[in-house]
């Protein structure tokens, strides 16, 4: 029966309350461990199409008469358009249409960051459109940009209300402490740089707008476009069958979609609006920089008595305030915690979610602070974390639906025990060390999410749902789940996805939620079809339904009978068995979170400041693992992005003008294959007994969260130096080494004078 309930919905740590209708979710839990298909390694079902270059991405979509867009973007961080003349540009060869402020909501006469869109031109080719841009006459009044986040906070220039949080009494906790540490950490602005740039192709078919776009949320784009254009949502069809990476930056339709839609309307032609790589790095979102001023206090035995922090996030011209304070509030059992978060409004490009927004930055600060504390307490860092283990959620005392962080710590021990051996490798200027950091994050997913399934007379099944596979392997995982439930081999299940006109509502692929949101819906659809198949089989073979089950592509009865599935479905000829399924509710009154720990081994050249990461062991608890092969790939990918975040990536601005200096992939340094350390992945694979019919949580984000702190802590282990700023460039490394040397010298002179 359908039930109407009020429930909490969480995406990227942002909770909202909403009404949803949920179906009964009375499926039996699958046993722990690898099953027939689920929990077993499966190469991606769409791997061949992608590898052979047959998969059609948004970038490959083409229609007869397709026009291409070039966008006039503000070269200034803050300016006013005094005069804008499109006339000459409209006369340019190949130009078919143009839009300016007033025509599309995103176009502005008062750009507030470099790269803000001001006007756009559609022409027969991208080259002609770009050439026409040169003919736009525009006069700017250049204004002084605000670029300093602390200054923005002082002036009260904030994107949202400041966000305070407190439990207990911080000052009291600090007074109780035997040791107090205090430090300021900084994290940089990081650019997503998915290989397929942000883009959309829009085409009007009668009164329906087709949007082909590289997106993490087909239904979100459908709804947002319909709303802005004043269309009934089903008059917008959104298609994204193959997608070339997003990492959080493609959750929304983006300006390019609205520009393409309007230019398509005006010209009567299909229009592509695709960002160039440089535009991508100007205006497609970023992981915002943070400043974190943190304090921690503990008793001599390691019990935390106080955690406090002021966090300033450089949001940019607009955006939302991800929770940088989250890890400090949630990771450890500490009674006295106070945090205050500010979102600074600056003349820089708007932030966007980037793989665990806030928690990546906040974990770097918190977990480095913990190790600075451990050093002062002369306590083993792993021990310090165990002493302060949180057994229930600290925000409102809820029980965890499952938490196996202690088991992650236990599994980390052999990696942690390599310390002596690793340190002993130090020779010449190279010092070796080991560090660790914990991970906490969301990843429970939630309703609404729906799937349909059809089983044909040939005994093959097709899952239909309008979700997207953004490269995480969700298409394969859904096929595995349906195959498991229907007792079919994996190669007898297809998945149709990527089209809002070809399936029911599917949730966003963000916040590590695709598997936990969509997986249970797919299982429930498959179970619905499975029930019908057994009902039919019972009639066909004159048996009771309860003695029948589906296994290995056959219908099996407890008395030893066994028939190929097609023998029953084949009776239907053209007929089909249709199943539908919905995601059940999250467990009421429980907190669903993911946990983990990473152990990093590094080498530091103390003369040059070069840092080399040799090995990272990642142990995560994300509930049941659907596809261990794809899961390990995702862990590796997260760690490698974390490596870039830690060592090489940074959006650099001209401090005077706010101009972006790192727009190209030679200036902005993402990791290459030559930068990759040995990565050891261990997933606990323990189903969450409270989490719907699957017990699986999301894995997209957890692996990137502790990497930076684990590396920084390994650097401290190797050298005694406290790095406090990302990326850890040679300058930052040498600064930290100098500071450590000065500290040691000061201690020695104190020691000498007191002797």
């Amino acid at each position, binding site marked *: 029966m359908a039930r109407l309930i009020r429930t909490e919905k969480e995406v990227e740590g942002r909770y909202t309350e909403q009404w949803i209708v949920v179906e009964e979710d009375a499926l039996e839990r699958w046993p722990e461990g690898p099953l027939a298909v689920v929990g077993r390694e499966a190469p991606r079902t769409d*791997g061949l199409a*992608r590898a*052979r*270059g047959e998969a059609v991405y948004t970038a490959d979509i083409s229609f007869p008469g397709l026009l291409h867009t070039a966008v006039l973007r503000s070269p200034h961080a803050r300016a006013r358009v005094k005069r804008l003349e499109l006339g000459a540009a409209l006369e340019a060869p190949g130009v078919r249409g143009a839009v300016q402020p007033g025509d599309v909501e995103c176009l502005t006469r008062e750009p507030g960051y470099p790269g803000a869109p001001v006007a756009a031109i559609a022409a027969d080719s991208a080259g002609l459109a770009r050439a026409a841009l040169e003919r736009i006459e525009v006069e700017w009044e250049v204004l002084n940009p605000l670029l300093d986040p602390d200054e923005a906070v002082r002036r009260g220039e904030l994107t949202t209300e400041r966000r305070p949080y407190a439990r207990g009494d911080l000052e009291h906790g600090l007074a109780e402490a035997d040791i107090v540490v205090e430090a300021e950490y900084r994290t940089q602005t990081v650019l997503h740089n998915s290989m397929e740039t942000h883009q959309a192709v829009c085409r009007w078919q009668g009164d329906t707008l087709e949007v082909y776009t590289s997106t993490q949320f087909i239904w979100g784009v459908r709804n947002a476009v319909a709303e802005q254009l004043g269309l009934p949502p089903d008059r917008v069809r959104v298609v994204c069958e193959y997608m070339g990476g997003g990492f959080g930056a493609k959750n929304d339709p983006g300006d390019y979609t609205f520009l393409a839609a309007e230019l398509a309307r005006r010209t009567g032609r299909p229009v592509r609006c695709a960002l160039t790589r440089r535009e991508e790095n100007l205006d497609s979102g970023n992981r915002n920089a943070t400043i974190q001023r943190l304090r921690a206090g503990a008793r001599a035995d390691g019990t935390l008595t106080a955690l406090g922090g002021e966090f300033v996030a450089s949001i940019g011209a607009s955006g939302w305030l991800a929770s940088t304070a989250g890890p400090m509030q949630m990771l450890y059992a500490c009674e006295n915690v106070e945090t205050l978060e500010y979102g600074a409004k600056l003349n820089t490009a708007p932030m966007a979610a980037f793989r665990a927004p806030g928690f990546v930055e906040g974990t770097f600060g918190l977990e480095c602070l913990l190790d600075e504390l451990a050093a002062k307490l002369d306590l083993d860092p792993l021990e310090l974390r165990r002493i302060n283990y949180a057994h229930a959620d600290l925000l409102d005392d809820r029980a965890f639906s499952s938490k196996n962080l202690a088991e992650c710590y236990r599994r980390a021990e052999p990696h942690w025990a390599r310390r002596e051996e690793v340190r002993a490798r130090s020779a010449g200027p190279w010092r070796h060390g080991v560090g660790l950091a914990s991970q906490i994050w969301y990843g429970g997913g939630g309703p609404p999410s729906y799937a349909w399934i059809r089983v044909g007379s040939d005994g093959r099944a097709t899952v239909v749902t309008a979700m997207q596979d953004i*490269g995480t392997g969700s298409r394969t995982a859904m096929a595995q789940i349906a195959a498991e439930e229907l007792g079919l081999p994996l190669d007898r299940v297809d998945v149709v996805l990527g089209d809002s006109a070809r399936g029911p509502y599917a949730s966003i692929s963000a916040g590590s939620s695709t598997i936990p949101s969509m997986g249970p819906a797919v299982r429930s659809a498959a179970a619905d079809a499975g029930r019908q198949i057994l009902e039919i089989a019972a009639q066909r073979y004159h048996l009771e339904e309860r003695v029948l089950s589906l296994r290995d592509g056959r219908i099996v009865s407890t008395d030893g009978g066994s028939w190929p599935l097609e023998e029953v479905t084949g009776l239907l000829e053209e007929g089909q068995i249709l199943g539908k399924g919905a995601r059940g509710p999250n467990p009421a009154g429980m907190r669903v979170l993911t946990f983990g720990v990473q152990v990093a081994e590094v080498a530091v050249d103390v003369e040059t400041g070069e840092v080399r990461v040799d090995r990272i062991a990642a142990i995560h608890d994300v509930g049941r693992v659907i596809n261990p092969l794809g899961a390990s790939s995702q862990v590796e990918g997260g760690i490698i992005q974390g490596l870039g975040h830690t060592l090489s990536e940074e959006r650099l601005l001209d401090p005077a003008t706010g101009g972006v200096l790192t727009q190209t*992939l030679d200036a902005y340094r993402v990791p290459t*294959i030559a930068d990759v350390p040995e990565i050891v992945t261990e997933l606990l694979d323990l189903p969450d007994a409270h989490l719907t019919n699957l017990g699986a949580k999301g894995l997209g984000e957890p692996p990137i969260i502790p990497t930076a702190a684990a590396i920084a802590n390994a650097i401290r282990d190797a050298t005694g130096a406290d790095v406090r700023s990302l990326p850890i460039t040679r300058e930052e490394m040498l600064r930290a080494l100098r500071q450590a040397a000065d500290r040691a010298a000061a201690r020695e002179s104190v020691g000498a004078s007191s002797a």
Partner: protein
Amino acid sequence: MIELRVNGGVHRVDPAVGRSLAETLREDLGLTGTKVACGEGHCGACTVQLDGVPVLSCITLVHTVRAREVTTIEGLRDHPLVESFVRADALQCGFCTPGQIVSAAALVEANPEPSRDEIRHAMAGNLCRCGAYPKIEEAVLTWRG
């Protein structure tokens, strides 16, 4: 009009001066397996082979190709590397993958048993933002199955 030898066939095309090989392949010949991710020679997504040598087609002017044989991913669809990439899960979003395979194919042609270091050296110009690198290394190491 110029003649372009691609994947064993000959095509007559009439590209404008300044047109890149990548644009010609993708837009004039419909060979969209070759991806363009930066368009300025920094990422390797657009890698094709000219007479077996990997080049960046986004910064190769089509008029400079002349009689050289162009090999794109479409010409390597049955190369054992395609299978080994899938088997090793050496791709996530897959947008960089055709370029990776074209580079790797040139590598194993010249050096059928590359070491890990040789793979890293030869493939460092092929960026993968999804970070499929460990498995790419694995796929190239095990390309013969």
